[in-house]
């Protein structure tokens, strides 16, 4: 019989077995035995955040930019409840997180003990799975299961709740190799008959579009390569969801830009008019589809997803392929090359009319905006940031709101895992901690959080973390003093009743940066913007960049709620397109 270990030792032995390098956490009474153990660990470094939500988003940023699971460690009660937003965020965006939470000792569970809460009860709907471990001999096995479930299939957050007495008790360790989850076996390889059905549709199509999503990013960098090869071979136009940006190079002419509510005119019209839609790792989210009953009315639809419950959930499809994006793309490529080698040569001609139509839509230049000599336009700020940082391998995180959409529209991503944004849950306060996690995973790389002045204040305390660990993240605030997206909806949908969307008292962000021990920079005119951005990039310390932008600019183009893809509004002159029915939707 092997040597007995304490619960805390078992936890870290398991984390070591899964090659964990970083834990984002915050100590407290119910995790002190684990923190005892942390101080003895040689290969695992703890990053002390300033709020547990920050630990969760930092772990998300780490996971998204590295392809490895993010690990968070929090105490019982408020530690766990503060983690709920980050877990929900990771669940919505399919990000692998392993959260370990402390719990009051088993004999106190259910007594309303100090810092007790029903953590597994609270987190049940916002995790892929969770466990309360009451038996130390189940601990190793549970942690191995947690890693397996978080990282395989459709990735997601898991939580392991460990009572304090279990952390002290001695028990047996079990290796990950000995652990199987009988009821959890995600399907990686798709049925060949389905692949062949899809390929039949592909070779016949005259107006195809590839609609790719976060599933391609989650399937690893090789999946992005396969997607790129597939797109090049077919010469099909490709659009991407917010989460899928970077899987196919954003600067490539075959890329139509993002689709959906703030997507480009060409992408949305191509979705509406196409005769074949190839959904690769996306989920027909309501920000993408607009009005469902008028969604791409004349197309055959192929849906590739590793999660069978995504299929036919929102949009009924003609060919449903359950499998990992990499495996499916490779199988489709093989079938195309082996059985239809002539297609690859002849296809450019066949879909040339379709490309002509797309280029006509492109001529609308739906992302254009009115330039201004005196004020910095927010779009211009992101464009300049892109131009001045595109030649180095830059990682972008965002908060949530107008700035996020402008970042998605104007910053072009040529590689996967360079874009970390909260899409499903839309969590303001995501970007700064996510930038911290991203910088930890990618030392030496430029990491910029494109932020709004309202969002950034939701987790601003993490500046202190960035300074402590000398993480030279850049917080690029598009400061318009409004909760811009709220203001925009109030303008367009609520009769310009700007209720509570203006922040009457904002901090001086330059002084705020200095107070944290970081560097503050402010830009107020378009003229000085380039120099200041260059200055920011050159500083090897955390920077808050306060970019004062035009206050009332709206984010266009936009599909108003309740409208189909072909009824976009392109700019301020187009606003009467919104209906009463559309106003009640979110």
């Amino acid at each position, binding site marked *: 019989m092997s040597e007995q270990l304490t619960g805390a030792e078992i936890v870290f032995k398991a984390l070591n077995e899964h090659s964990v390098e970083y834990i984002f956490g915050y100590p407290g009474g119910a995790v002190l035995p684990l923190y005892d153990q942390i101080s003895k660990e040689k290969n695992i470094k703890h990053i002390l955040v300033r709020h547990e939500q920050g630990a969760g988003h930092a772990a998300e940023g780490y996971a998204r930019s590295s392809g490895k699971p993010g690990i968070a460690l929090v105490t019982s009660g408020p530690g766990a409840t503060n983690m709920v937003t980050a877990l929900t965020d990771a669940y919505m965006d399919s990000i692998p997180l392993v959260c370990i939470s402390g719990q009051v000792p088993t004999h106190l569970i259910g007594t309303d003990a100090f810092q007790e809460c029903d953590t*597994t*009860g609270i987190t*049940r*709907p916002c995790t*892929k*799975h969770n466990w*309360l471990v009451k038996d130390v001999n189940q601990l190793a096995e549970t942690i191995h299961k947690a890693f397996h*479930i978080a990282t395989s299939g459709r990735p997601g957050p898991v939580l392991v709740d460990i009572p304090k007495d279990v952390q002290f008790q001695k028990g047996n360790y079990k290796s990950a190799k000995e652990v199987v*989850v*009988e*009821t*959890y*076996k*995600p*399907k990686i390889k798709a049925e060949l008959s389905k692949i062949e059905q899809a390929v039949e549709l592909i070779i016949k199509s005259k107006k195809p579009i590839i609609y790719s999503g976060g599933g391609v990013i989650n399937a690893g960098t090789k999946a992005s390569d396969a997607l790129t090869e597939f797109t090049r071979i077919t010469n099909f136009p490709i659009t991407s969801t917010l989460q899928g940006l970077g899987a196919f190079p954003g600067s490539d002419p075959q890329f139509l830009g993002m689709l959906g509510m703030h997507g480009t005119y060409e992408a949305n019209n191509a979705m509406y008019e196409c005769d074949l839609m190839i959904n690769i790792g996306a989920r*027909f*989210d*309501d920000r993408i*589809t607009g*009005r*469902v*009953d008028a969604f791409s009315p004349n197309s055959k639809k192929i849906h590739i997803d590793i*999660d*069978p*419950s995504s*299929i*036919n*959930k*929102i949009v009924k499809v003609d060919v*449903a392929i*359950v499998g990992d994006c990499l495996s499916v793309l490779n199988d489709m490529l093989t079938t195309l090359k082996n059985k239809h080698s002539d297609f690859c040569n002849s296809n450019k001609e066949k879909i040339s009319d379709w490309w002509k139509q797309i280029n006509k839509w492109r001529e609308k230049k739906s992302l254009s905006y009115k330039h201004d000599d005196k004020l910095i336009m927010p779009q211009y700020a992101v464009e300049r940031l892109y131009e001045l940082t595109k030649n180095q391998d830059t990682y972008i995180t965002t908060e949530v709101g107008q700035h996020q959409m402008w970042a998605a529209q104007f910053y072009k991503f040529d590689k996967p895992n360079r874009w970390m944004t909260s899409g499903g849950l839309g969590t303001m306060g995501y970007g700064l901690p996510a930038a911290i996690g991203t910088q930890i995973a990618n030392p030496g790389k430029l990491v910029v959080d494109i932020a709004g002045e309202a969002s950034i204040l939701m987790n601003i305390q993490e500046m202190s973390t960035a300074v402590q660990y000398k993480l030279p993240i850049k917080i690029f605030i598009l400061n318009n003093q409004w909760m811009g997206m709220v203001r925009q909806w109030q303008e367009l949908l609520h009769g310009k009743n700007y209720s509570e969307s203006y922040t009457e008292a904002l901090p001086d962000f330059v002084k705020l940066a200095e107070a944290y021990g970081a560097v503050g920079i402010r830009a107020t005119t378009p003229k000085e913007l380039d120099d200041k951005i260059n200055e920011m990039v050159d500083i090897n310390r955390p920077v808050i960049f306060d970019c004062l932008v035009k206050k009332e600019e709206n984010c266009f183009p936009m599909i108003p*709620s*309740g409208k189909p893809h072909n009824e976009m509004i392109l700019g301020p002159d187009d606003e009467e397109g919104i209906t009463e*029915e*559309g106003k009640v*939707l979110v």
Partner: protein
Amino acid sequence: MSKSAYEIDQHHDQVERYVVVAWVDNEAGVLARVSGLFSGRGYNIESLAVSEVDHDRKISRITIATNGTQAVIKQIQAQVLKLVPVHKVNIYPINDETIFRELALVKFLGEGEMLQKAEQLCVDNKFEFLDKTSKSFIVQALGLRTEIDEFIEKIKAFGSVSISRTGALAMKKGSETVKDNKGQVL
């Protein structure tokens, strides 16, 4: 006309009753996972019956009577199937292919003629008496949900009653058993 993703198919399809049967690991919290999924996604639970059916493998069978359009029912099946401790899920439409049974314990309180009439009603239905006193009896009613509904309606006319019901159980007729459908498109 539906306007958004929140109203898919509701208007094109009729709401019908179904029974969802899930085979799950009998572990802490598993019922909360399944029932929480129903409430969280806005599905209805008419009745719910659960018990361990395989003591060696620790597997429980959960039977939920629910209603929805066909698309909603498919989505319920897919979502329940996605839960980690769930082995397989089957859907039974309410038709002749499936056996449905529900059990109720009914305590009747009454005297004299009314007590006799109530007793006679139970005898007519061939229900088994489990307890009798001069002022009350407990009867076990077994049958379809509608049959039990009717019986309760009738016996209430004779006195006051206290009722406990199991909710529906379901099993498909014939020699076929439910195959593993984890990870499949439904």
